């Protein structure tokens, strides 16, 4: 059996031949310590992705890499338009699961005494958890508009401001949406859930900026030590899950039709340019736009809550990133500019100053890269570097990455103990289901600082600020 090779301090290579049919090598960006935590199954998944037609350079895994389905979590792969494929296995079911960061002018010490009240108010204002339906009651027409125009639609409906749009990846609405590729079932799941947080690892968190690593960039991002920030982590809800489910079935048939040999059924795909690929992309964009609209609405309700307790609190949008999505981007490959379909599955875009996709306000430093911690552990804001373009198609990690299965977590921790332990550190948690709280105990994740340090050391993105939780509202 061929083993993986250490290339440098934070880069391991999965050589061609690790498994049959690999077209390019794999690259796993981890430190020696994190390498020990990468399961063999994760390496197999990196190798599996490397067998897909039209893959460029490497099948990559970010420092938070862990076992997923199809692609590993933390997986990044880019495909040529000519001869390449698109695969829902490289996007996931929660299309455009992402993170949004709001900043306030309020010092955290003013928020701290009110934290219980604020978290309860947010818990009320933003529906979360199982079976939660929105306060929104979107009509069918509104749903179609959300699929088409994402955050832009939300702003037109009175949620948030025009200025927010420039601070969302893709301006909060991606081109190429095709609502005819959203099934009746996906609409039925998506309609009542627009404006809901969901469950699992999704959260709404009030944070304090604990440490600034780069004063200049922090100033550009509007961040300062001791400041209150709010982080929203959620995605496209049942709409995205169903769109993925529906198209996965179509693409599972397409691999037979186009004679594509795949090592795992979740890597079902279709050649770019084929009707099946076009249809999946059109549906996926609808889900991505839905997710941006969703985060926009949730941010609006969060602003309303803060306005109630801190009038004039002006929660400005720092940035909003997608960490489960496939996008058409231009990259240099062997000295030539090429249009690629970049899949990021549990990976965050980390573009540096040279990219026109970076909003004007951040153009001379790079985009904010938002890395949520797990419940109770710090989150980080980093700044994208041009160096990442060559190394990872401009991609960084998306979180800490699990090290323990959910069932193991449930056996080891009780929800109420997790809550009590967090309370001891002054972190208030409100959740709809204590069972699910145990699964998200801080101990089930890799230390977020270690993961972020690898990204920083590699020069993919540089550390700007560390944010610690004051209170969390969860599904």
């Amino acid at each position, binding site marked *: 059996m061929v083993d993986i090779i250490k290339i440098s301090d934070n880069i391991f290579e999965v050589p061609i031949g690790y498994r049959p049919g690999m077209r390019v090598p794999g690259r796993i960006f981890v430190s020696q310590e994190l390498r020990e935590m990468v399961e063999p199954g994760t390496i197999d998944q990196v190798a599996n992705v490397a067998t897909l037609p039209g893959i460029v350079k490497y099948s990559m895994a970010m420092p938070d890499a862990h076992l997923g*389905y199809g692609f590993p979590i933390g997986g990044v792969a880019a495909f040529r338009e000519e001869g390449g494929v698109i695969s829902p296995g490289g996007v996931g*079911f929660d299309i455009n699961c992402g993170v949004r960061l709001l900043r306030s002018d309020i010092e955290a010490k003013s928020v701290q005494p009110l934290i219980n009240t604020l978290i309860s108010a947010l818990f009320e204002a933003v529906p979360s958890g199982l079976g939660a339906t929105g306060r929104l009651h979107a009509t069918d027409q509104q749903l179609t508009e959300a699929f088409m125009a994402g955050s832009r639609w939300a702003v037109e409906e009175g949620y948030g401001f025009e200025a927010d749009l420039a601070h969302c990846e893709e301006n909060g609405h991606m081109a190429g949406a095709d609502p005819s590729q959203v099934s009746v079932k996906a609409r039925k799941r998506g309609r009542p859930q627009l404006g809901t947080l969901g469950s699992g690892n999704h959260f709404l968190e009030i944070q304090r900026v604990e440490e600034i690593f780069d004063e200049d960039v922090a100033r550009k991002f509007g961040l300062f030590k001791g400041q209150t920030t709010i982080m929203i982590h959620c995605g496209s809800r049942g709409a995205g899950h169903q769109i993925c489910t529906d198209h996965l*079935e179509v693409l599972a*048939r397409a691999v037979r039709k186009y004679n594509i040999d795949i090592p*795992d059924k979740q890597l*079902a795909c279709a050649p770019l340019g084929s009707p099946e690929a076009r249809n999946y992309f059109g549906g996926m964009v609808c889900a991505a736009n839905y997710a941006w609209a969703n985060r926009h609405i949730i941010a609006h309700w969060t602003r309303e809550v803060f306005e109630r307790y801190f009038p004039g609190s002006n929660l400005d949008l720092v940035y909003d990133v997608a960490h489960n999505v496939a996008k058409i981007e231009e990259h240099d490959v062997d000295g030539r500019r090429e249009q690629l379909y970049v899949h990021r599955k549990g990976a965050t875009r980390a573009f540096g100053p040279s990219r026109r996709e970076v909003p004007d306000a951040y153009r001379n430093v790079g985009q904010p890269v938002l890395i949520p911690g797990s419940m109770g552990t710090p989150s980080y804001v980093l700044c994208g570097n041009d160096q990442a373009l060559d190394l990872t198609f401009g991609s960084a990690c998306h979180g800490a990455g699990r090290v*323990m299965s959910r069932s193991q977590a449930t056996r080891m921790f009780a929800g109420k103990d997790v809550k009590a332990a967090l309370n001891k550190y002054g972190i208030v948690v409100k959740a*709809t289901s204590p069972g699910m709280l145990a699964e998200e105990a801080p101990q089930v994740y890799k230390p977020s600082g270690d993961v972020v340090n690898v990204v920083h050391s590699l020069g993919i993105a540089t550390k700007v600020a560390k944010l610690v939780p004051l209170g969390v509202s969860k599904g």
Partner: protein
Amino acid sequence: MPVRPNYKWMMPFEYLEHTADVKFRAYGHCPEEMLSNAAAALFKAMVDPAAINITEFWNVELEAQDLEQLAYQWLSEIVFLFETESAVFASFTVGLKQNANGTWRLEGKIGGERIDLKRHAFENEVKAVTLHQFQITKNDLWCIQVILDV
């Protein structure tokens, strides 16, 4: 019905370790039983079936090219019904028919009740059924392996 002598005892399903998601194998003496047990395994990953009263029934009709695709549709349908009907399920009856042209047809009857968060303590929320390592095998018993996205 008298018990047939070769009708061996089997466990209906078992969960396997998986870092991020829920993985299970469900068994059956026939594909119908395997699919019924797979549905039970999917649901037990969310809620303790003992807490669910069967007061309502939902009927499902599905068609697919092959048994694997049909199984994927069946399990995905349960996730869809759970979410859109706000219901939890504890009984799954499956009828299968293979048509002359080779396609498969499933008629299912699902029993359960509407979600009551006071009685139904959720351990997971199944977001979707993945095709990762999805497979059906037949040796002594029928076996389906499934990984759920939670």
